[in-house]
């Protein structure tokens, strides 16, 4: 019989307070001779669902609760009944959202079903006499006065240890977290802001020692625990209801809408369509998901440009409702991939909107359902290694530049799990030659322990939760800094708890297409509707995709995808759907097999049973649902089991379940007589789906958008590239897009006070840089300029502009340096314009009237300052735009290039297999690890003729990774290799052009002096 149970324990989910993970706590409880764990996070239920799952897996008896603390008052509240849970959620919601929150008075209304443990006098005074109210004696704090108070008022006492960490040594980490949270240094951390140093997970006998002579306080823990038997009823579907309809009206409405949509999509309702519709509606009706479809349809109707994502695209109901745009009949998308009778959890219906329209859509949703019924899903933001290093270093008081030196090198290492950082730094080539002096080893050690610690809640990029009653009955709600309501759970817990979640995501390419179409209309008068643009059969577009000329094109612009396009040599829609799915982090080996088979290599199915299933994809598992189907066919999984396997592959916390599935899979396959070797091969292919992977309907949906944007790139390059840059956020930097535009034959025009708008403008054969590119230009100044120009016409000089608008000198400086006034400078140089601005900055004392005063007049005159030299001009371009536009940086090194025999990137194909030199400017880098865990890199470079790919194998990586920089001109030596049509330079040596230039100048000087 246990003699003590911890009723007050914080895990990492107590923001910047608790240090232990839930898993470790559960295991430690068992190891220390207990069987029950209470988790009471500070002001929240952030990890409740996970806790229940982990407790189930480890066999710990869970008790749920929270600690509410307001600064003056605090109490630990433990859930006894469902009503108690709802009450706790309400109070926590109030704690975060109410303007004034007094714990003792809220407790009077909401304490039913909760056990209350507190050491605040006000709480105990108001609550005394009620059942389940206890005076909390916290070990390590001064609890004797609390005990005395309890005795005087006949409140039963209970002993806790306010556990914040696992072991005594973790106290240091706790202090560090508090220091980070409070923005304080360790030597000035206030005592009341930290837990006592004894607040670790003690075992019952250690707790008895800490509370001598208060046996009842220890025994009461058992008594309280007996009353807290509540569990969260996960998996109960919540039918959100729609506009007050009952379930039969919902299905009728849905049917009517679908039939109307079918006529729009197909022209008429053919028997085939009707059959499919009936089948789908039957299942949707049985499951009670009808209202979800109506909700999504209602939301989608708010925007003309959407892209349904996920498996919903397999449904004709979604297609006819306009939620998705790919015809499931034409492209063989099976409804069972989306919904089947065995599935219990609600389906995902996710929709993309143009990124800048999405907030309006969300506003619409919140307005329609109100703050009581709807909120967004949260993100749990944890410390990544780099952020942890930076924050810990700040507590240690290190200067910014020194921190940056270390964190810059760490940027690739964020995922380095359990290996100690010191080992990584000792062995990893990125850190070669770097000696870490105190206090750095300590900082890194601490930072590594801090990794993953829960830091704050942010807003999930699009998940919306809607419930039929009140949200605060189900989950605590907070208000994010952005102002929107969020639930305390991230997407996995939200889903697992059974709440209905719809993802409304922002998509930049939809905005790119919209803006490009608008520009085409403006420039040519041609009107193209987004929905009508369906270029999948356009040969020009197919040709572009086939060549991998797809910088800026939605979803297929990354170097890896472009190389795959080149290798595959196909540009049709069906193959693009395959390609956008097969490009997954873990699927590299299968991609090459795919390409070879595509090019005609004979192949055998992995197993005869799978021949049919994987026929379309050349025997390779490409889509998410292939996992389910293979598991069903090969190992006799039921549909639910197969689905479960697929799900646990994509979840962060899937590890435990995955092991079970692996056993089940092997056993099932063996029973069907599959060879162990084949089982292993297939399982490995299944594992390549972990992390990111896509289902066919999703890829089909996305590939359609890819085609639309590829069509624009092919036929309206200027409008398209301008829209890509203006909407930001593509795979490449603005500079890379601009040089690509140049290579496409477009002319780049500098920003101009009368010619530029905020976004880039593409027209005909030119792109005008937008004022958005000017770094540091205030939005207010930009608006003022554009508005004034709109109403009063173009500006004719700087003076005139200053008279027309009050504009800050710092903004004018940026505009002048960017050359915005060059066309209206009236003969003045940029330096003189700057002088004029800075001179006008000081208030003039009635200068005009007393113009007799020679001194004043003299002051107004701008001295002759002359024009900048070329070098200064470039420096200013880099300063205000972020990159030079007058020339490509590589063209600045003529001297360095002299005598260098290099191959231009557009002529690589003439030098296959040869050792060559190439020059390059850094574009993007992708770090990968080989099977033996050695790092290597795929780096894209460009010269003035083309973009090209290079590979730094581990050996080259080792030698050069520390010298990589994004702002120097490279000379790369190596061999050009042809991998199934995709060319790349395998680098064996590298140098910098500017260094070569310096060297040559030195030699020349020497020759001059000597000779």
């Amino acid at each position, binding site marked *: 019989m246990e003699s003590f149970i911890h009723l007050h324990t914080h895990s990492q989910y107590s923001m910047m307070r608790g240090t232990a993970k839930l898993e470790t706590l559960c295991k430690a409880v068992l190891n220390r001779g207990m069987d029950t764990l209470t988790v009471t996070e500070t002001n929240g239920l952030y990890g409740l669902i996970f806790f229940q799952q982990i407790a189930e897996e480890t066999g710990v008896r869970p008790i749920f609760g929270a600690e509410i603390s307001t600064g003056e008052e605090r109490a630990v509240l433990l859930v006894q009944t469902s009503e108690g849970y709802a009450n706790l959620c309400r109070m926590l919601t109030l704690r975060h959202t109410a303007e004034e929150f007094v714990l003792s008075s809220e407790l009077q209304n909401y304490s039913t079903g909760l056990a209350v443990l507190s050491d605040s006098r006000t709480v105990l005074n108001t609550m005394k006499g009620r059942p389940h109210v206890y005076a909390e004696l916290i070990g390590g704090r001064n609890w004797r006065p609390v005990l005395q108070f309890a005795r005087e008022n006949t409140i039963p006492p209970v002993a806790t240890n306010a556990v914040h960490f696992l072991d005594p040594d973790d106290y240091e980490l706790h202090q560090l977290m508090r220091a980070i949270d409070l923005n304080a240094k360790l030597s000035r951390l206030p005592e009341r802001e930290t837990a006592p140093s004894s607040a670790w997970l003690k075992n019952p006998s250690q707790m008895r020692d800490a509370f001598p002579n208060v046996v009842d306080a220890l025994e009461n823990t058992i008594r309280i625990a007996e009353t807290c038997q509540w569990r969260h009823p996960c998996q109960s579907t919540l039918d959100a209801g729609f506009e007050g309809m009952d379930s039969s009206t919902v299905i009728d409405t849905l049917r009517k809408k679908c039939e109307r949509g079918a006529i729009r999509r197909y022209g008429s309702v053919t028997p085939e369509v009707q059959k499919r519709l009936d089948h789908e509606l039957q299942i949707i009706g049985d499951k009670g998901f009808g209202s979800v479809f109506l909700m999504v349809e209602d939301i989608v109707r708010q925007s003309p440009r959407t892209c349904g994502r996920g498996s919903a695209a397999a449904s004709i109901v979604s297609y006819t409702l306009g939620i998705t745009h790919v015809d499931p009949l034409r492209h063989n998308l099976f409804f069972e991939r989306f919904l089947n009778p065995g599935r219990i959890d609600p389906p995902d219906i996710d929709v993309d909107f143009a990124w800048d329209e999405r907030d309006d859509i969300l506003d619409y949703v919140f307005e329609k359902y109100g703050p009581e019924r709807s909120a967004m899903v949260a993100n749990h933001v944890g410390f990544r290694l780099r952020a942890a290093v930076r924050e810990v270093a700040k507590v240690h008081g290190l200067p910014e530049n020194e921190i940056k030196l270390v964190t810059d090198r760490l940027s690739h290492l964020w995922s380095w799990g359990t290996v100690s950082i010191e080992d990584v730094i000792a062995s990893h080539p990125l850190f070669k030659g770097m000696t870490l002096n105190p206090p750095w080893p300590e900082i890194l050690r601490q930072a590594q322990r801090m990794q993953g610690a829960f830091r704050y809640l942010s807003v999930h990029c699009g998940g919306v939760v809607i419930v039929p009653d009140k949200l605060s009955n189900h989950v605590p709600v907070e208000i994010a800094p952005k102002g929107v309501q969020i639930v305390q759970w991230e997407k996995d817990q939200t889903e697992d708890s059974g709440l209905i979640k719809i993802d409304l995501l922002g998509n930049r390419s939809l905005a790119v297409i919209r803006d490009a179409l608008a520009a085409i209309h403006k420039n040519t008068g041609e009107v193209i509707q987004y929905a009508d643009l369906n270029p999948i059969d356009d040969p020009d577009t197919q040709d572009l995709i086939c060549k991998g000329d797809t910088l800026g094109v939605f979803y297929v612009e990354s170097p890896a995808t472009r190389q795959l396009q080149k290798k595959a040599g196909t540009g049709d829609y069906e193959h693009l759907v395959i390609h956008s799915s097969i490009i997954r982090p873990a699927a590299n080996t299968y991609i090459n097999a795919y390409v070879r088979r595509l090019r005609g290599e004979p192949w055998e199915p992995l197993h005869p049973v799978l021949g049919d299933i994987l026929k379309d994809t050349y025997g390779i598992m490409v889509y998410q649902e292939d996992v389910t189907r293979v598991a069903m066919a090969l190992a006799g999984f039921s549909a639910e089991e197969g689905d479960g396997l697929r799900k646990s592959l994509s979840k962060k916390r899937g590890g435990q379940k995955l092991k079970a599935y692996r056993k089940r899979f092997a056993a099932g396959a063996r029973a069907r007589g599959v060879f162990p070797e084949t089982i292993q091969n297939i399982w490995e292919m299944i594992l390549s789906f972990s992390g990111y992977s896509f289902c066919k309907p999703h890829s089909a949906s996305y590939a359609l958008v890819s085609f639309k944007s590829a069509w624009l790139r092919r036929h309206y390059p200027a409008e398209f590239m301008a829209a890509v840059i203006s909407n930001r956020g593509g795979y490449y930097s603005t500079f890379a897009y601009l040089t690509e535009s140049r290579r496409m034959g477009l002319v780049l025009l500098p920003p101009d006070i009368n010619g530029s708008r905020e976004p880039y403008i593409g027209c005909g054969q030119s792109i005008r840089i937008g004022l958005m590119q000017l770094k540091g230009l205030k939005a207010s100044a930009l608006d003022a300029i554009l508005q004034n120009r709109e109403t009063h016409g173009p500006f004719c000089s700087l003076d005139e502009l200053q008279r027309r608008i009050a504009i800050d000198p710092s903004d004018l400086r940026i505009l002048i340096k960017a050359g915005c006034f060059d066309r209206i400078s009236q003969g003045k140089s940029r330096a003189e314009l700057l002088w004029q601005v800075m001179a006008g900055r000081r208030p003039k004392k009635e200068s005009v009237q007393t113009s007799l005063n020679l001194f004043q007049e*003299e002051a107004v005159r*701008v001295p002759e300052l002359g024009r900048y030299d070329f070098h200064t001009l470039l420096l200013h371009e880099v300063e205000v735009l972020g990159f030079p536009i007058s020339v490509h940086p590589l063209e600045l090194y003529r001297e360095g290039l002299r005598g260098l025999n290099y191959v231009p990137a557009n002529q690589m194909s003439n030098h296959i297999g040869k050792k060559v030199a190439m020059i390059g400017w850094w574009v993007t880098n992708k770090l990968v690890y080989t099977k033996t865990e050695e790092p290597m890199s795929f780096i894209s470079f460009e010269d003035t003729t083309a973009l090209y790919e290079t590979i730094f194998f581990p050996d080259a990586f080792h030698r050069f990774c520390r010298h990589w920089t994004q702002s120097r001109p490279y000379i790369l030596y190596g061999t050009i290799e042809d991998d199934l049509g995709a060319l790349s330079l395998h680098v064996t040596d590298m140098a910098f052009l500017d260094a070569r230039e310096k060297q040559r100048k030195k030699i020349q000087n020497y020759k001059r002096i000597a000779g």
Partner: protein
Amino acid sequence: MHRHVLHLRVDAFPVAVERLRDSSLRARPVVVCSRHSPRSLIYAASPEARAEGVFEHQPLTLALKRCRRLVILPPDAGLYERASRAVSKILCGYSPLVEPGGWGRFFVDMSGTSRLYGSMQDAAYYLRKEVVDSVRLSGTLGMASNKLVSSVAAQVVVSRGDLYAVPQGSEASFLAPLRVRMLPVVQSKTERSLLAEFNIRTAGQLAGISVAQLASVFGKFGGVLHRQALGVDPRPVLPPSTKSFILEEHTLDEDTNDDAILLGILYALIERACRRMREKSAVSKTVWLHIRYSDGMDATRRKRLEGPMPVDPVLFRILKPLFTKTDYRRQRIRYISLTFTDLFAAPDQIELFPVAPQDEKARNLVRAMDAIRVRFGETAIATGRVMH
């Protein structure tokens, strides 16, 4: 009357002095830097070290990376002080107006000495020869009509031991081809970048712009810019004895943000300054606390002292909250200084009001410590908090 200001500049003075002590250091890259911590900063670097990319204020680790054969010497402020005083003493033989301006920089006002020495140039050579002969330190010499131009001239001289004399009246034409950053007034980054934006690169270009025009952009500062560009500097050469403040400072070998250590240093500074004031029988009405963080940011606060001069522990109680306020960041601290100004002679200590017993105790303690230090040396006794 023409003014003649001579500037003697011994480059990397601490290194030059160390080389006197150990001739094997010649022609090798040498830096003066505390070795206690890899985080300490280079205090002075020899020209050979600079050629390898090692400069003042760099962290030692970086310096060692750039130059593996670097010789590192721990700073010995006492030695440099003695050397500096020795040079000053020689210079005082030429003129009573000698002003040391930082390690290895000396201004000598030679105005009105032409009767004594004949040509100013000859005087300068004698002076340099005497410094070389008796202390064996050689530097560059600048001669001009004021401090500004003479110090610039001493920097422009190429070879060591040379003299650059700027004739009276040609100050402006001397400065004209030089980069604006040679002017002491253009030291801050903002001024430098602003001038670069205006395409003003040389002192001559700057001098070509009128005061009024400069004032329209730089305000009051415009006047100084204009004057310096023309080589005008009215500042007199001031011997150190005319300065009236007491400064105690400490540079941490290893920067820290630990209050326990920092307050210990503060206490030590208070002790040293108060002792100097007691020796001089001076009291101060104002104390300035100055700290420099590791990232170069400074913070300064001032406190008025009321009534009679408090003894060390009492003053510490007063200055501790001032320190907490001044050091409001988490950033480590590299340097702390305490400056007592508004000094005047202490009135004879007749206590009009009874002193609090604990203050009386503190006073007795301080007296006893003073006595012990006089007899057994500075390090014979210390309070616990300065022992970190």
